[in-house]
């Protein structure tokens, strides 16, 4: 009897705690979505109910912002960065794990060390490099520095540890060359690793703020994150419009995440069963 009560109390506590945490993580999203339907004044007053200003906010957003161009810029950068990063970094991760040597280990460690350098320290040298190369205010300049991602190389190397060497041996016996093994054996087997990395890299690229801010100079090249930042920093920001922008900017990452969720979870658990 007491045991039952104890268990019920325990469950209540557990669910209460989980519920609270769920609420805390979902609430900002909820407020963002509701904010898009309210006027700026209502948002400041703290209204968290659906309002009637959605149509006004949306139309103000689309008159103030050249949305198709801005989203196209963001999408172009994010997709290009993701595809290139995955191609380069997965090759590197594969290479580091399969073809080991003492020198390569040193190189690998040196590469991991770069994870510890904050971007703010790299910003000005990188900017000078891009300036010398004549790439300021181009999307190439945004994408280039992200391609060789130490974190993604590290992630691929860790996952490659689970890639069975028997598969490689068998493929070799069947006469496949190294690039064929990578392309036709490794890539399909590591599908979920790629999916997980895709989500991570895509989200980072889509939300990237500081570097695009520094290197992009004109209204024609700006990404959605920069546009939202400038909307939100007006002397009297129209928060309803900012929320519309934020909701729209969140949709692509949400879509990517839900689309690849199953693979993502598998990728996190380890890809090869």
């Amino acid at each position, binding site marked *: 009897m007491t045991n039952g009560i104890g268990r019920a109390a325990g469950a209540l506590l557990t669910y209460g705690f989980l519920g609270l945490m769920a609420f805390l993580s979902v609430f900002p999203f909820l407020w963002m979505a509701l904010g898009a339907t309210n006027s700026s*004044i209502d948002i*400041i*007053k703290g209204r968290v109910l659906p309002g009637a200003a959605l149509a006004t906010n949306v139309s103000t957003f689309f008159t*103030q912002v050249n949305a198709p161009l801005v989203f196209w810029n963001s999408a172009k950068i994010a997709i290009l960065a993701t595809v290139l990063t995955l191609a380069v970094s997965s090759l590197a991760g594969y290479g580091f794990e399969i073809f080991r040597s003492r020198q390569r280990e040193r190189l690998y460690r040196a590469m991991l060390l770069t994870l510890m350098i904050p971007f703010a320290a790299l*910003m*000005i040298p990188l*900017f*000078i490099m891009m*300036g010398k190369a004549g790439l*300021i*205010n181009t999307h190439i300049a945004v994408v280039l520095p992200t391609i060789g991602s130490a974190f993604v190389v590290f992630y691929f190397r860790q996952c490659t540890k689970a890639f069975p060497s028997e598969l490689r041996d068998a493929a070799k016996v069947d006469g496949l060359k190294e690039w064929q093994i990578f392309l036709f054996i490794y890539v399909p087997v590591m599908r979920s690793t790629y999916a997980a990395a895709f989500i991570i890299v895509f989200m980072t690229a889509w939300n990237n703020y500081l570097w695009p*801010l*520094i290197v992009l*100079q*004109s*209204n024609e090249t700006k990404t959605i994150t*920069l546009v939202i*930042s*400038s*909307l*939100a*920093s*007006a*002397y*009297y920001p129209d928060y309803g419009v900012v929320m519309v922008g934020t909701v729209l900017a969140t949709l692509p990452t949400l879509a990517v995440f839900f689309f690849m969720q199953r693979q993502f979870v598998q990728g996190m658990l380890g890809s090869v069963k």
Partner: protein
Amino acid sequence: MDNLARAYLPRIAGLALASVSFLAVTAAEAKEITIWCWDPNFNVAIMKEAGARYTKTHPDVTFNVVDFAKSDVEQKLQTGLASGTADALPDIVLIEDYGAQKYLQSFPGAFAPLSGTVDYSGFAPYKVEVMTIDGQVYGMPFDSGVTGLYYRKDYLEQAGFKPEDMQNLTWDRFIEIGQQVEEKTGKKMMGLDPNDAGLVRIIMQSAGQWYFDKDGKTNVTGNPALKAALDTVGKIMSANIYKPAAGWSDWVGTFTSGDVAAVVTGVWITGTVKAQPDQAGKWGVAPIPKLSIDGATHASNLGGSSWYVLESSAEKAEAIDFLNEIYGKDIDFYQTILLERGAVGSLLAARGGAAYEQADPFFGGEKVWQNFSDWLAKVPSVNYGIFTNEADTAVTAQLPALTQGTPVDDVLKAIDAEVSAQIQ
């Protein structure tokens, strides 16, 4: 791979074509002036208007106004200047007055001096002081933050005060009135954000002092105006005539919702005050209260920004001419930006225009713009120095101590120590 090539070749070709046509355009001597600023509804819109006016008489000059967030403009400017990559910088940039000296002194030679071209005697002197180094004046004074005391006539009348009673106040009198307003109407006198040192800055500058003296040395412990300002804020707090606000939006809410009887701030708030149509006719504007120390005035400033031309700009001559023609001379332009954007510029002659002459029914027929324009010319000049933001942080950090009744001299010492530690 094939696909990639197919997708990108046309684009590369397009890019090549585009650069060719770009070169062709440059050859035809069309000049494009690039400008960075930050508020789409304010300085961005105003600069577009200014550009359109200039293009009418100079069809060969076009404008590209790019808006970033204010902190983003600063970040980009800093990176561009620090890296020495000239083609990464705009031709004209907007800089907030509090930060202007920092850029001018940290990057000597980066900004084009305009003295000699622009007749600075026509501008509010304190705006010119902000952009002067060693007798050279850089920049074109833009929007002013000349301050006023906005008050609710209806609440004050209930408490027994007429508009005449609100003129030429001292801060002590202001606090007395506040106490009576609360007694009679139950309304607080003003909104106050304990994490914003804006009011301290307003009161300090009204007596012609700043955190730094004319030579840029820290001026905290021996600064009578700062001491009196902190004293005043402390009195407002202990008299409990304020409604506490958490952050900017909340502070704006204190008067838009009708919870307080007065607002002391820069003229740029006028648009927000007038955005409440149900409060039409209920507001009046008076000069801000005055301290009872030497050099005290009824005029001060909060915020404001100015335009600067980059020395490295390829269109430097055009940019300077543009600023001088429009911001330096075009009285009609100042009427337009006042009417459309509520912007009070720093050109004193603008007050002669029709928009400034108008009586405003929202303020019960007062000629508020004329008044602000009078006060604008009287704002004491101070040296904002390089570290205003750091000093401001120190003051903000000490405001709670003030609320708890710590003696003002101790608070000043603590601020001085913190400022010294921050700026080394």
